[in-house]
C-alpha cells in the first residue's frame, strides 16, 4: 500500500514535470534545444537575399538577418553552442522541407501573402518590392501602355505574371504574355529579343541587370504593376513560441539601426562574388516598416 503510494507520487511528479517542460518549450524551440542545431534554408541564386558566393557558401541580406535570429534563439535557450546547418531550397522544395521539419527558417525572397499564410507563417517583413518591367533602352518602352501588342515575358507561377495578366485584361493591352521557367531564363528572353520586356519584382530586375553583359543597355520602368509587396522569412505555422522569439529578434534588429546597416551592406555597396553594386537605397516604405516592424501580408499596410 505504502509502496504503491510512493510510486503513484513519483508518477504524478514525473507527469507533472513532463507537462511543465512541455509548457516551457514546444515545437521548433524544443527541437533546437534537444539537438543543439538549427537549420536554415537558403536559395542558391536569389541575389542579394540569399545566394552562393564563389566558395559555394550561402550569403546575403536574408542570411545576415537569419544569423541575428540564430543569435537570439541561442540566447533565449541559454545554449553555449548552437550549430547552424544550411540546407539549400528551391521554390518547389521550400514548403515540403518546412512542413516536414528539415528547415526551421527559410531565408530568401519569399513574398508574404494571405494565401500562403494558410500554409506557413512569416516573421517581420525584411523587404518591400513592387512589380515593374525591364526593357532594352533601345526599344523605348516608357510606360505600361507602350507594351501594347508586344511580347512580354514573366516567370510562371509568380504573383507578377498574375498582375501582368490582370493589367493586360483591364487595360486592353493585347500583350502576348510568355511564361518563363525562372528569372534567368526570362531575362535571357529580353536579352535575345524574344520579348521586349520582363515583368518582375523590381529588386530582382536590378540584380539581373547589374549582372548582365551590358547593364547600360537596360532600363527599369517607373510604372509599376503593383503596390510594394512584403518579403518575409518563413517559419512553421502554428508555432507561436518560436515566432515570438523570431519576431522579437527581427524587431530588435530593424528598430535598433542594425537593419539599416545590413541593408546598406547588400544594396548600396559592392557585393561578392562579382563586385556588383545594386545601388538601391532604402525606400521610404521600408524605412517606416523598420521603425515599426510588421508581419502583415497586406501591401496597403506599408505606407
Amino acid at each position: 500500500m505504502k509502496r504503491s503510494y510512493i510510486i503513484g507520487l513519483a508518477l504524478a511528479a514525473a507527469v507533472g514535470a513532463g507537462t511543465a517542460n512541455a509548457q516551457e518549450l514546444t515545437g521548433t524551440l524544443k527541437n533546437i534545444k534537444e539537438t543543439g542545431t538549427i537549420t536554415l534554408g537558403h536559395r542558391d541564386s536569389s541575389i542579394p537575399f540569399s545566394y552562393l558566393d564563389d566558395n559555394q557558401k550561402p550569403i546575403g541580406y536574408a542570411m545576415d538577418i537569419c544569423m541575428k535570429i540564430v543569435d537570439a534563439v541561442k540566447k533565449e535557450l541559454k545554449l553555449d553552442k548552437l550549430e547552424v546547418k544550411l540546407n539549400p531550397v528551391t521554390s518547389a522544395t521550400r514548403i515540403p522541407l518546412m512542413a516536414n521539419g528539415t528547415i526551421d527558417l527559410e531565408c530568401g525572397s519569399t513574398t508574404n501573402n494571405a494565401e500562403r499564410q494558410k500554409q506557413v507563417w512569416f516573421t517581420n517583413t525584411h523587404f518591400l518590392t513592387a512589380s515593374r518591367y525591364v526593357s532594352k533602352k533601345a526599344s523605348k518602352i516608357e510606360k505600361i501602355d507602350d507594351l501594347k501588342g508586344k511580347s512580354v515575358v514573366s516567370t510562371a507561377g509568380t504573383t507578377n505574371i498574375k498582375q501582368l495578366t490582370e493589367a493586360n485584361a483591364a487595360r486592353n493591352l493585347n500583350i502576348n504574355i510568355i511564361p518563363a521557367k525562372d528569372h534567368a531564363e526570362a531575362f535571357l528572353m529580353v536579352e535575345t529579343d524574344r520579348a521586349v520586356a520582363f515583368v518582375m519584382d523590381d529588386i530582382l530586375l536590378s540584380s539581373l541587370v547589374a549582372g548582365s553583359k551590358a547593364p547600360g543597355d537596360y532600363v527599369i520602368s517607373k510604372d509599376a504593376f503593383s503596390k510594394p509587396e512584403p518579403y518575409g522569412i518563413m517559419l512553421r505555422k502554428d508555432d507561436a513560441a518560436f515566432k515570438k522569439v523570431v519576431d522579437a529578434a527581427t524587431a530588435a534588429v530593424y528598430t535598433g539601426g542594425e537593419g539599416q546597416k545590413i541593408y546598406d551592406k547588400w544594396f548600396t555597396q559592392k557585393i561578392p562574388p562579382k563586385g556588383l553594386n545594386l545601388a538601391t537605397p532604402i525606400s521610404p516604405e521600408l524605412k517606416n516598416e523598420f521603425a515599426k516592424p510588421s508581419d502583415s501580408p497586406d501591401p496597403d499596410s506599408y505606407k
Partner: protein
Amino acid sequence: MNYNWNWGIFFEPNPMGTGTYLDMLLSGLWLTIRTALLAWIIALVCGSIVGVLRTLPSKTAQWIGFLYVEFFRNMPLLVQLFLWFFVLPELLPRAAGLWLKQLPNAPFWTAAIGVGLFMSARVAVQLGAGIASLPRGQKQAATALGLTTGQTYRYVLLPLAFRIILPPLTSEFLNTIKNTAVAITIGLIELTGQARSMQEFSFQVFEAFTAATVIYLLINIVVVTGMRFLERRVAIPGYISGK
C-alpha cells in the same frame, strides 16, 4: 509533419482568373497531349526513315543514319531544347533569327520538334534492330521475286519489323509523353509547369504534384491499353509476335 492538407484546393478559383486550379491543371494536360502527339508523329516519321537508312546496303546511307542517331541520342534532351530555342536563332542571319524568335507559340513548336527529333533517334535504333532480327531469307526471297529495294522494305521487311518492335515502341511513346515535361525549361507551361504554378500560388505543393502524377499515370494507362489493343489487332497468327 506540419502541413495543412487541403484537397478541396482543386475546386478553388486560381489567381490567373481562368477558373479553378483544376482547370489550370487540365489546360496543362491538354498542352501536354498536343505536344506529345506532334512529337510522336515526328519521331515515328523521322525515326522510320533513319532506321531504314541504317539497314540499307549503301555505305553513305548507313553513315548518314549513324551520324543522325549519334547526334540526337548522345546529347541530353534539355541541352537540345536549349540549343533549338536559344542558340539556333542566334546562328541564323539576323532577320531569319528575329522571325523565328517572334513566331507565336515558339515554345510549343520548339518543344514538339525538339522532343520529336530526340525520340526519333531511339525509334530509328529500334526499327534497325527490328529489321536486323528478321531472318535473312525474307530479304533474299523478296529479291528472288524481283522486288526492288523499295518494294522489299515496303511489302516485306517493314510490316514484319514494325510488328516486332511494337512493345518497345509503346515504351517510347510513354517516354515521349513524359519527356514533354522538360519543355517547361523553354517556357511551355504544360502539366508539370501548371503543377509548379499551382504550388507557387497556393503553397499546396503535395496536392499539386499528386494530381500531376495521377494525371500522367492516367494518360499512360490509356496509351498502354491502346497499344496493347493495336498489338493484338495487327498480330499475324503463327509469327513471332502473334499467338
